[in-house]
């Protein structure tokens, strides 16, 4: 039962990274690929009908984590207090940027929200990567299962490290490169002409950066947290996940070369899913490793809600996921194809 919920939370977080990842990535490259007002509106309209729903995956994953593993939720949210609050402020600024931009036609108004949107998207991508880095590296849990991490201390990887050290910064860059490529693939898929060409260019650059930084992160993880390979040694079938990720990367490179944007987008989705699953497989059954003493780590067994709660939840969770898949399928189907700018006055 705990394993089911570990997979469920992991699944929802991965869905979040794949879905909100492309609109975050669109935000990162917004100022780089879209030069004219029409191009900027096209980028924003490509994600307009879906970004809000994408972001809901974060909330739903958070809710599910709270429900299934209340102890992990309480410990990590209070421990990562400051960075999470900053993530909240960035999420707010980004959402407001995209929602409020079109209400005034004044160029300064639009420029202000464009920069806000891009900056917030970029910082969020880095923060999320750094957060993942913290989870992989471990945090200074005390015997009660709580900790508090300052933003930074020495920048070296020590047991009482802050949120940012050299390892988590690398992870931040990996995340930034990944979502940039992912978003650029999405924009290339939804657009034409000069905008599409520039999006392809940025997708290609980011795709190579993704490979380089992922390899660096791979070596760094090996160096600071070698236990992450224990699971792979015991159950070599787990190598299927990194292999899938690698196939995703190769497929992306291949599709890019042939200018097949939608294939490239699905390939980068596969890359993200493969990498997320690889990390989860390596951590299992730990959810929050302890850098202080290994036995303080929060695992799915010492932090889960009780059996009854989890089994009732499984029923409605599966129903909910089927419904959500239906809505998302329908929404994406409705807005399929290239983004056309609406005539003046259409849409609200």
């Amino acid at each position, binding site marked *: 039962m705990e394993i089911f919920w570990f997979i469920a939370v992991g699944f929802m977080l991965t869905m979040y990274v794949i879905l909100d990842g492309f609109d975050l990535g669109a935000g990162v490259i917004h100022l780089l690929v879209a030069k004219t007002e029409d191009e*900027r509106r096209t980028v*924003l*309209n490509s994600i*307009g*009908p*879906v970004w*809000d*729903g994408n*972001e*809901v995956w974060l*909330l*739903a*994953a*958070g*809710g*599910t984590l*709270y*429900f*299934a593993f*209340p102890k992990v*939720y*309480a*410990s*990590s*949210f*209070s*421990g990562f*207090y400051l960075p*999470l*609050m900053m993530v*909240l*402020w960035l*999420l*707010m600024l980004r*959402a*407001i940027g995209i929602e409020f*931009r*079109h*209400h005034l*036609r004044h160029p300064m108004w639009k420029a202000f929200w464009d920069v806000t949107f891009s900056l917030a998207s970029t910082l969020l991508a880095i923060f999320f990567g750094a957060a993942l880095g913290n989870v992989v590296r471990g945090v200074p849990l005390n015997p009660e299962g*709580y900790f*508090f991490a300052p933003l930074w201390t020495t920048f070296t990887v020590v047991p009482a490290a802050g949120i940012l050290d050299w390892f988590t910064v690398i992870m931040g860059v990996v995340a930034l490169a990944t979502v940039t490529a992912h978003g650029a693939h999405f924009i290339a898929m939804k657009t034409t002409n000069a905008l599409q060409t520039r999006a392809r260019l940025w997708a290609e650059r980011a795709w190579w950066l993704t490979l380089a930084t992922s390899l660096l992160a791979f070596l760094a993880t090996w160096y600071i947290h070698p236990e992450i390979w224990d699971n792979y040694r015991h159950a070599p079938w787990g190598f299927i996940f990194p292999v899938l990720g690698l196939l995703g990367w190769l497929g992306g490179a291949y599709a890019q070369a042939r200018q097949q944007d939608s294939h490239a987008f699905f390939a980068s989705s596969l890359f993200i899913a493969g990498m997320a699953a690889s990390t989860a497989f390596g951590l299992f059954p730990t959810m929050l490793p302890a850098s202080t003493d290994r036995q303080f780590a929060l695992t799915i067994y010492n932090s889960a*809600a009780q059996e009854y*709660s989890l089994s*009732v939840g499984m029923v409605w969770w599966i129903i*909910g*996921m089927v419904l*959500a898949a239906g*809505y*998302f399928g*329908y*929404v994406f189907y*409705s807005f399929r194809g290239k983004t056309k*700018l609406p*005539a*003046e*006055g*259409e*849409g*609200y």
Partner: protein
Amino acid sequence: MEEALLVHRVHFAFTIMFHYLFPQLTMGLGLLIVILKGLALRTKDEHYNRSARFWAKIFAINFALGVVTGIPMEFQFGTNWAKFSTFAGGVIGQTLAMEGVFAFFLESSFLGLFIFGEKKLGQIGHFVAAFMVFLGSWLSGFFIIATNAWMQHPVAYSVAADGSVHLASFWGLLLNPWLGWQYLHNMIGAVITAAFVVSAVGAFYLLDHRHEEYGKVFLRLGVTTGLLAAVLVAFPTGDGQGKNVATYQPVTLAAMEGLFETKEGAELILIGQPDMEKLRMDNPIHIPRLLSFLTYYRWGAEVKGLDAFPREQWPTNIPLLYYAYHIMVGLGTIFIAIMAVAAYLLWRRKLYSTRWLLWILMLSFPFPYIANTAGWMTAELGRQPWLVYGLLRTTEGISPTVSAGNGLFTLLGFMGMYALLGMLFLFLVMREVFHGPAPAAAHASAA
């Protein structure tokens, strides 16, 4: 610790009070938009469709702010109230996760379709999308109130070896006797807000001689739903909620009513100031025996006063609780009066030319916001000193590792952020209102 507790409490109170300004309008307005779309389908009158589109714009601005200010609420259970989350997550995690999985996905998916997809969906499809958005927002409200109802009156739980609580009955949690009245009372309060806002814009258009045909549509819609909701919020929902408080939290009822002494045939205090040193009401104006009747339907019934309970069970801030409750009830009474007069004049076909009443309707839209905020304060202050009534004290729920200084830093951050959001919000909504539901071609398109 004292300092940290205060900071965390103010942090949550501030963020949730600001947050609830937005969903109360969207939940009510969601219903009114469904009514407008329904009227448009039935009558084929394009005015209703344009009205629905106009309110959808305001809805979308509100919705965006509701979402961005709602995300911190979910986070804060973990960031600021970690001990509470560890203690109660096994129960309320259930309803909070269901809100995410059932309500948020529904709402956000169909809002995208409703806002961007009218051409693609056709009129019936567009009506369905509006209905789904409404359904999602009311489901969202249900799961949140279910969570709060459990904190007010915990049911369906068992205590585990480590002291935390766990769910014992899924249906028990959803059928909490506290939940029904609290939910209906809350949702009808949201309809009142929307009805007053719609009426205010309608009144403004008529007073200012602009978009007059829409002003009339808005007034008809706002006044009829407003009167209905204003009556329903008092009876039976407010009454039912009051009886729940009397049954499950009698000490809270005594504090809300300012009743210091237990008595038979207790009076209902309309106005007065609680004096916490002398433990009595100053300058009371009261109606004899009415409180006994309202609570137990018997004029001579005994109502327990604060003196019947040990001091450490009294709510921690009795004057604030008392005022919040009386502001809510007082404003609720005024809402019935305003909407009754307006509905009477509407029926006699005199409303559109009765300028003094249009002025009142235009200026009274902030009061439902105040009443709903006061109602929320009544519920939350009334629960004190408990975080989960009878099970977990508020002092025991805060995060053990987050210092007062860190809490203050983020509280100030939210204050700054929300000041900015509030100004932008007012600016954009007022712009839409001044612009009005004019033919679509003149309006800038969505980006």
